[in-house]
């Protein structure tokens, strides 16, 4: 069982490295667009989830802890996407008149 855990950790390490290289390559080579912003934010969410579940082992944690940390990596990428795609929205909210 522990050998399986070791192989699982090795596998997700490779996936995380590949996701990092993929996101960097896309961002450097492609013309900046809303689609690229969404791809990058989706990558943040997936990478966060993989570290939480596979490296931290939060599958075994109390659900409130697991879901709170998971929600951080859902809400934050969504918030970043909205703010980057619609900057005037945040600018309007934070302007002192």
């Amino acid at each position, binding site marked *: 069982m*522990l050998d399986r855990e070791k192989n699982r950790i090795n596998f997700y390490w490779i996936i995380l*490295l590949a996701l990092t290289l993929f*996101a960097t390559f896309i961002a450097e080579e492609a013309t900046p667009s809303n689609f690229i912003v969404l791809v990058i934010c989706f*990558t*943040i969410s997936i990478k966060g989830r993989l570290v939480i579940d596979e490296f*931290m082992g939060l599958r075994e944690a109390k659900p409130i802890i697991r879901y709170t940390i998971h929600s951080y990596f859902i809400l934050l990428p969504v918030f970043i996407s909205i703010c*980057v795609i619609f*900057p005037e929205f*945040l*600018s309007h909210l934070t302007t002192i008149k």
Partner: protein
Amino acid sequence: MSSAVLSNPVQTSIDGAELHKTYYGIGNFAIWFLIFIELTEFAFFFVVFLIGKSHYPEIFYQGPTELNTIAGMLNTLILITGSFFVARAVSAIKTDKRNETILFLWLTFAMGAAYCVIKIWEYQWNIQSGFDSSTNYFFGVYYYLTFNHFVHVLMGMSVILWVTIGMHLGHYNSSHHATLESAGLYWHMIDLVWIVIFPLLYVLR
């Protein structure tokens, strides 16, 4: 609880750690409180960055193109690998593989050191290229955010060093390794924060 156990503080503390483990599944109240505080602190920094980006779009569009993306990417790979090593260390202690645990803890520490070397080199590269914290709002937030994270990496390295010494002294085994597990959780938190910092500062325009 027998009087023999009560008179043994080490045994009492181990029981406490195991009690926390039963309640939280992994880690204890102190480490989860710290992790939530740290994640909240960085969430505020990210909001400040995004507010700045919404008010100064030209500066924040230009900013990432002036940073060294290779250095940022290397640090991402290094921190993910550090997280991988610490996960392997926690996995190894569960089967009492003492030497393997020690090896992976030292490798985690080495990843932290490599991160620091690259970050210092990157700061020097920025300064030589004429970008310091007073250049513009983007670089102000960049230095504040990344230096803050850098300090957290140093704290994480100290924690990893502490449990590595504990391993050398034989303090942990397959039944009692709650402290080592908590140190690993703190290190993962540092990695999680960088997973957001790298795309936000270096990649998104």
